[in-house]
């Protein structure tokens, strides 16, 4: 199953992913509209000692957020593998147990509504909006094994060039 893979070295912290995320989750569907609607982004670029580090949901195999969810709203879809607290029969009440549980800090409190906010994987789009927008290919939508193989190939190439 494909997921959002992060190449830390390629990220320069341009924040395009956060804008694209907000746009994709806004009613208008545009960046300007998202800013007017104050739609929050669900991917974060954290500053770590001067380095930009993207942090977002990994849609875990056994999601701690879903285990902690006391309403049943947060669930992993068995077909798509996506973990979300939206679009289910059970509704999120903003108890924040998922925020307490997520070891990646990928779930946040919505800035205005009493509801937890997280990456929904952009169901319906060919690839998540953040990935499509990333100009540096720091975010990629790939099979984890394929991504890892590419990284070791890159490492081998740079080692060969260095020698």
């Amino acid at each position: 199953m494909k997921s959002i893979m992060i190449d830390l070295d390629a990220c320069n912290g341009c924040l395009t992913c956060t804008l694209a995320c907000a746009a994709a989750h806004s009613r208008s569907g545009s960046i300007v509209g998202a800013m007017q609607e104050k739609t929050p982004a669900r991917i974060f670029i954290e500053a770590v000692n001067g380095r930009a580090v993207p942090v977002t949901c990994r849609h875990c195999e056994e999601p701690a957020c879903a285990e902690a969810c006391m309403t049943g709203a947060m669930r992993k879809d068995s077909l798509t593998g996506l973990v979300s607290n939206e679009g289910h029969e059970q509704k999120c009440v903003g108890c924040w147990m998922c925020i307490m549980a997520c070891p990646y800090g990928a779930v946040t409190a919505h800035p205005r509504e009493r509801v937890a906010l997280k990456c929904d994987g952009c169901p319906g789009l060919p690839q998540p909006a953040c990935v499509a927008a990333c100009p540096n290919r720091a975010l990629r939508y790939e099979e984890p094994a394929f991504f890892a193989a590419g990284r070791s190939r890159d490492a081998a190439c740079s080692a060969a060039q260095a020698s």
Partner: protein
Amino acid sequence: MVRHLIIGNSAAGITAAEILRRLDGRAGITVVSDEAEPAYSRCLLPDFLAGRKTGADLRIRPADFYAGNRIDRVSGRVLRVDPRSRQVLLENGGCLDYDRLLIATGARSAFPPVPGLSGPNVTGLRTLADARKIVQLAGNVRRVLVVGAGFVGLETAYALYNRGLEVTVVEKMPQILPGQFDATAAGILQRDMHAEGMRIILGAGIKEVLTPSGFLNFFNKSAQGVLLDNGDRLKADLIVVAAGIRPNVELVQDTGISTGRGITVDQFMRTSVPGVYAAGDVAETEDVVTGRVGLTPIWPNAVSQGKTAAWNMAGQPRPCSGSLGMQNAVEFREIPSIAMGITQGGDPGLEVVTAGQPGQNVYRKLVLRDNVIVGMILVGDISGAGVIGALIRKHADVRKFKDDILRGRFNYGYMLAEMRNAG
């Protein structure tokens, strides 16, 4: 075909049933419960009290859950487990056979031994039936007394206050949420509740519940209410007891299944008797922070233990990732708060660091032992709480990040960057 029998239809039981089906398409799975409703969330009962949710809204699984997963449901109260014949006996005279048994009977409200603390206007809040009873009574009463200022007590108080009732909370300890928060954090949350208009009486216990005639004799006034151990008297038409829980272990008495306060289990959720497992509020496990064996009665632990029990019942051995007994997230009015692990200092081996401005409803506290976080409190800003929780569970040395964590600057990016630098 293996026959799995699960006693209990809440967080642990329903999770186990779901995962057993995922792991074994052919096994027989039966859930027996004395509650007739489909599995619902006890944590949402205050929302039901407040009128924000209906009974159907409390369900934690889709309507087709049982049929879709081919889970048989039996309605009935289990009287006794008989491990020798591998049967459980029901109150209605029936009995159910099993190959593997999960006891997920949960707990019930514990009532303190106070004279007169019983009767139609006294109840706990543990089941949907309790909640329905309170809602029914709430239409005809004005003053509610909540006994205990833990999470359940305060959530109940807040919900009933929102229904327009006069609510007083009485707590024996000198602060609200005594099991979880320190005095500073409790003070912030209490101020917030006072602002709403709720009355909270601390450091006082209930000495006696007075009937209308008793009240008349004592105080020469016609009312019903309570006498506190400090001599004060309070009128109360409805008393909700939220003074802790007692695990439902009676069904294993004299069966050879070891119990302490709850049913003792190992990290595979196995009891002392082969083929019998326990999970959820009824189970006693080792706390990942304190190392002490005890109850860990919160929702995420019940789910995690139910999951572990299912894997092991299905013959795929897998230890529990470890339960953190004390962890809770709460937002009564508008201040989100999270506490985890050991939140009070005191022990000479513990280092306590705090930050924030309690006057502005922002407070952070870390409790560490040898640079390993063993507990935390976040009030006001709870973002990234789970990242700190992961550091607690992993017993990670945080000396490099201590100040960043305390100031709320730490995030998972730090660990990604560390891993990259290391790799």
